[in-house]
């Protein structure tokens, strides 16, 4: 199937959106933020949160700290008697600027794929394989 003009320009558009959202530096941060966007007030344990987004607790904790430091996330104080914490996403205000468009994109499968592709570190071996395959077809 030939790609449409929009499809061709999509990666570039996503890259520009990511430039406006410097907090999103990896797939875990992107997926965690999408989860919190869909569940703006969440009362969960760290383990449950990690399980819902599908990343390690360490990665999730790192992303949460980042969001919290940026004022994007409010976390209830962890009490010893409570396993769960309340997480509230704060998108209103300057910290949420530029994020809503990106999050709306990330809520679709295709949009998420584009975002994950843009966040993925460059893989020279794979790029070379693709180049070779295209040459053979030509």
């Amino acid at each position, binding site marked *: 199937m030939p790609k449409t003009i929009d499809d061709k320009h999509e990666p570039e558009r996503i890259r520009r959106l990511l430039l406006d959202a410097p907090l999103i530096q990896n797939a875990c941060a992107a997926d965690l933020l999408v989860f919190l966007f869909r569940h703006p007030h*969440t009362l*969960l344990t760290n383990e449950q949160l990690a399980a819902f987004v599908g990343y390690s607790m360490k990665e999730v904790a790192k992303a949460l700290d980042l969001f919290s430091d940026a004022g994007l996330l409010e976390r209830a104080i962890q009490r010893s008697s*409570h396993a769960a914490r309340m997480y509230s996403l704060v998108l209103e205000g300057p910290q949420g600027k530029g994020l809503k468009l990106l999050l709306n994109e990330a809520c679709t499968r295709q949009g998420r794929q584009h975002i994950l592709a843009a966040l993925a570190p460059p893989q020279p071996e794979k790029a070379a394989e693709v180049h070779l395959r295209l040459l053979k077809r030509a």
Partner: protein
Amino acid sequence: MLEADLVKTGITGFDDILLGGIPRGNVILVEGGIGTGKTTLGVEFVYRGASQFGEPGIIVLFEVSPEKVSRDALRFGWDLAALERQGRLKIVFTTREVLRQELQQADSVLLEEAAKIGARRMFVDGVGRLFGDGNATNESRSAFHVLTEGLQRESLTAVLAVEASSYDDKHRANSMPEESIADTVIRLRMEDSQRAVLRSLEVVKSRGQAYQMGRHTLQILDGNGLRVYRRVQALTQPRDTAATYDPSERISSGIPGLDELVNGGYFVGSTTVVAGISGVGKSVMGIQYIAEGARRGERCIMLSLDERVPQIIRNARSIGVDLQKEIDRGLIHLEYDSPQEIEVDVHFDQIERKVKEFKPTRVVIDSLSTYASTLGTLGRIFRDFFNALTALMKEQKVTTVYNHENPEMLGMATMMGQFAMSSLVDNIILLNWAEIGDTFRLGMTVAKMRANPVNRVTHECEVIDGKGMRVLARELRLLGPQKPFSSFAGLVSRAPERRSFDAPNIREPNTGTIEENIG
């Protein structure tokens, strides 16, 4: 201390069932299977509180994402996101495991969140498995008890939705412990009705208040939300006001000659059934009845299950009645409702609202037999519906004529047996064809006239194009060989025989030639 006031749910029709609302602080258990409307009920309860009654609320979800609940709520015109932005609503996503742990804590984070926004209402969706799978264990009972204590401590009026598997009417032997602890139990059902499925709502119990018992019809309507229709049998107030107006006042039938047969007209607020086979002129009588009302400046309604409004207007034109003119004057309201899959509570509610809003003095229902074929005459639905309808009309001082298509010979038996409605009917008028020679001639017999003398003589009628129906004089100076009905016996039984004796001395509705009578 519990406050004595009632919390309005804001759900259309539901507060009427609850006689105003639910006592504040009650823990409300909503049971039901999938698709019965539990989530919609809970969300609407919180939404109405926050948007209409100044009572912020909190919604707790387990499996469904808040995003989807907000999206679905928009379908009903409820902007949950806007309420969240205004700090009047909070939707919290959690797991049952966390909630269960939270309930064990004196300083519940969840209830703290509720307190932050000053929540007065709470909805927890899908609490069933929180307390086990419906087994009445001590653990589930105490877990639920802890929850209710926490809610009470925060003065929250909470709706807790319980999944169906634990609460299947057919499979459970004992009531769930939650049911006895909860203050209010509401059961939602999907009920088979022929090949259709209807939703219903029942208040099983509610501490501290009276309420309308039984299964009421529930609908989920786009752009509105839930709507509860009181079951027709449940009365909001005693319908005995019919006795408060002059019961001797009469109202004209609109059929020349008929008023004299019924001692001057129907009693105000009375119930008249016009019975006869198809095509005999029942609808014509109905049209003339409302046209006569309009002529006198009275408001009238004709509700038809058989013919659509344009068809009724056309039929009326053929007998010289311009219904459109009266509709435009605001004196006549015609309404058609399809008899297919009538939801009886909904239908009755529509009639009740129309009658109270339009305030007619005359109503024609065309026809009872269509109701019977739709609702069935087995069981109580038809009879209860008819009972409620006659009570409503009497309460509103409406003189009502019901048409009844009736194929039987003498036209009375089904009203007493199959339909069992004769005791509710004040007047019965039979229309029959009588075959005399090679001609069918129309006969009218007043078979019953409550609190009136009636001679039960069959009179001849005619329906003339551009003129309508008239009752003819019994003794006519006939032109030609035609003999008057008084010359025959056995007209109603459709076996007329010419009789040789004189007709009994009876009061005549009209005298004169046919031409004079219809002229």
